[in-house]
């Protein structure tokens, strides 16, 4: 496949060299056939670093990743693979499911047979699948290997360029000019070089040969871009480190404080507000519907500072940040971000403020705050003490008609109090209290209090009641939550690296896109001038430079006439 690697100028070139590293004479057979066609100047014709005559096993792996063709295939396959992940929702977006069987049931129910196949093929976890990650790893490898194999030889080639090039090399460039020079060739080259210097070219001369070059750094743009992409890819892979990435949801009713699982932070929803569009603001087909305009959670973030792992004490919390969380306005603190995800209208009592009444005298004794969740166990009301004996958040009766709670939520709480104090029987008076104003709970309250009476635990003397529960159509003496807010809690420690990678990549792209590497070679042999120029893009600009400089030294040429490619491409 590869044949002689020694150029006629005496330079020994590595296997795979297209243009002699020293004089630029074409070595590749294909280029030798058509003596007039413009040269393939990719990587200045140097061989890829790893090309060897007898590759062994590791070299073969290396060569596989070194191929740009393979890289393109890998990217195309990855893109096609990625599209599979967009057919149905991914498992990671289904908040409440965790088990394989649950996911399977979800896909079957939502998407039928297609869903079953989709889930069975593992496409419901496309982006976490071994083959997708494997493709990303291969692309990353290919980026490193491709770049390294090309950038090092290119750097070497550009760093020690021969000034005097082979005539074939000069005459087969994309921009060429041939003419005659009267007088001293050296002198002419000197003047021509000076003009090019004014166009900010670096000019090197050697016995009537000249090399002018500008913006070489733009050649490094693609490689800097690749470094950025590698940093980016590594950062994305870094997300699989458990401590680097978190994405979870937390439901909070108004006034609730909950720990963010897996962290030392607690979050409180102080208040939730929602605004709807008025009818005038809505499109005609939406009129009469409730469309949310703005919803917002007033949230406070706390850090636990003491008793965090002590199950016998409540944790000591210190406020670290407060923020009104809206869509696209997250609460962020030390890499932790709390986003507004959704909300649910669900009335839930937080506390009531009932009044204790002595039915014998008909007098109100006093009032106190009664929490629906984790109620205090003792209350002082006037001269009496109320001790909470029993508490059922969601009152009901079990099969043996014993009182029990049906759920853990205070949907219909019942409180059993024992009252002690002056002129109350020794063992106290027991009564049950239902704060919910429903008919059923009031019925239970009555029945149970009657049974306490018949058992002799109570004389029916005390009762609790919320006074003036409704004032001006609003609940009074009752604290309640109207909305439960759902917050999305995220942590992404890979993000700074992703930004750094993206920035490096951008710098590389700008370098490569907005500057062009331009080179002009010329040699004067016995008054005969041969000039060739090469640039990786914008040959129009290069032609203009050459024509301008030629014009300055007295040879007027039309820039278009310098184009050597016209009949080829």
């Amino acid at each position, binding site marked *: 496949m590869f044949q002689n690697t020694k150029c006629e100028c005496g330079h020994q070139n590595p296997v795979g060299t297209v243009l002699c590293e020293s004089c630029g004479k074409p070595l590749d057979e294909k280029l030798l056939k058509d003596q007039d066609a413009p040269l393939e100047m990719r990587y200045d014709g140097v061989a890829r670093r790893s090309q060897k005559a007898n590759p062994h096993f590791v070299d073969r792996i290396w060569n596989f990743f070194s191929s740009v063709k393979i890289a393109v295939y890998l990217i195309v396959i990855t893109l096609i693979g990625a599209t599979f992940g967009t057919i149905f929702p991914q498992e990671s977006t289904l908040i409440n499911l965790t088990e394989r069987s649950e996911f399977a049931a979800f896909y079957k129910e939502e998407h039928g047979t297609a869903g079953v196949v989709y889930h069975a093929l593992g496409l419901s976890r496309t982006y976490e699948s071994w083959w997708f990650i494997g493709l990303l790893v291969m692309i990353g490898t290919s980026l490193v290997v491709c770049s390294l194999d090309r950038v090092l030889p290119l750097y070497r080639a550009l760093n020690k360029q021969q000034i005097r090039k082979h005539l074939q090399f000069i005459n087969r460039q994309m921009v060429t000019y041939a003419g005659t020079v009267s007088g001293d060739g050296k002198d002419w080259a000197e003047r021509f070089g000076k003009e090019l210097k004014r166009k900010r070219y670096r000019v090197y001369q050697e016995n009537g040969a000249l090399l002018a070059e500008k913006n070489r750094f733009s050649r490094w743009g693609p490689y800097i871009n690749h470094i950025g992409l590698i940093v980016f890819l590594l950062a994305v892979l870094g997300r699989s480190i458990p401590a680097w990435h978190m994405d979870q949801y937390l439901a909070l009713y108004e006034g609730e404080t909950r720990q963010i699982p897996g962290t030392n932070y607690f979050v409180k929803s102080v208040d939730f507000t929602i605004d709807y569009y008025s009818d005038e603001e809505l499109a005609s087909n939406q009129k009469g519907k409730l469309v949310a305009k703005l919803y917002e959670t007033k949230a406070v973030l706390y850090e636990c500072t003491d008793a965090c*792992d002590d199950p016998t004490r409540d944790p000591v919390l210190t406020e670290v940040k407060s923020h009104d969380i809206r869509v696209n306005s997250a609460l962020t603190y030390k890499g932790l971000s709390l986003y507004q995800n959704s909300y649910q209208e669900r009335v839930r009592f937080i506390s009531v403020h009932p009044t204790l009444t002595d039915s014998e005298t008909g007098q109100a004794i006093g009032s106190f705050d009664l929490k629906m969740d984790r109620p205090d166990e003792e209350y002082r009301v006037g001269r009496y003490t109320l001790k909470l004996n029993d508490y*059922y958040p969601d009152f009901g009766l079990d099969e043996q008609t014993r009182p029990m709670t049906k759920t853990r939520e205070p949907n219909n709480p019942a409180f059993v109090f024992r009252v002690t104090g002056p002129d109350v029987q020794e063992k106290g008076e027991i009564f049950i209290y239902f704060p919910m104003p429903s008919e059923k709970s009031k019925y239970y309250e009555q029945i149970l209090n009657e049974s306490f009476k018949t058992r002799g635990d109570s004389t029916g003397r005390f009762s609790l009641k919320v006074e003036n529960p409704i004032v001006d159509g609003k609940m009074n003496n009752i604290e309640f939550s109207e909305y439960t807010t759902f917050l999305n809690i995220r942590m992404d420690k890979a993000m700074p690296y992703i930004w750094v990678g993206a920035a490096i990549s951008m710098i590389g792209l700008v370098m490569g896109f907005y500057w062009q590497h331009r080179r002009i070679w010329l040699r004067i042999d016995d008054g005969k001038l041969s000039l060739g120029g090469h640039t990786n893009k914008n040959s129009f600009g290069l032609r203009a430079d050459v024509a301008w400089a030629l014009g300055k030294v007295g040879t007027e040429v039309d820039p278009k006439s310098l184009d050597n490619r016209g009949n080829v491409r």
Partner: protein
Amino acid sequence: MGRYRKPIQYVILAFVLLVGGYAIGNSLMTKSVVLAKGDEPPGFRLADLQKQVHDMEDYKGKPLIINFWGTFCPPCRDEMPALQNQYEKWKDQGLELIGINLSEDKLTVESFIRQIGVDFPILLDNDKKTEKAYGLKQYPTTFFITPSGKIQEVVIGGLLTEEEIESRVERLIQAKP
């Protein structure tokens, strides 16, 4: 440069193998949180009704039953007496039994326990943390853990009779560390 070509190739390929292997290996691992036979149950540190702290570590080396229960769950309520009876029968032979309550109010738990007359430790979970760590989906769920700290069996839902508990305890006690 040429001198280092080979070492550089090897270093880069080894790095790729390492990072790629980790990433792909990670993606192959099952992310299931449901515990199964042979797994080591996650640790916990919870307070009982007397505010004594119980650490999972304290129970290493002893046959252990962990019962997750709540007063709101009828089968949990119904199987409590059976658990208590079996506890009394086997505790002299080293059996440990823990009831982890499903994040209910202390008062609610206490009054139920008093009614039934349970005297094995009842631990209070907080904000469903332990329950989630154990991947609970149904109540009650009972874990039978060997002295070597491995799960022998997970009984999900349903009502455990004394016989059912007994046969499992016997197996647990036989599985000495």
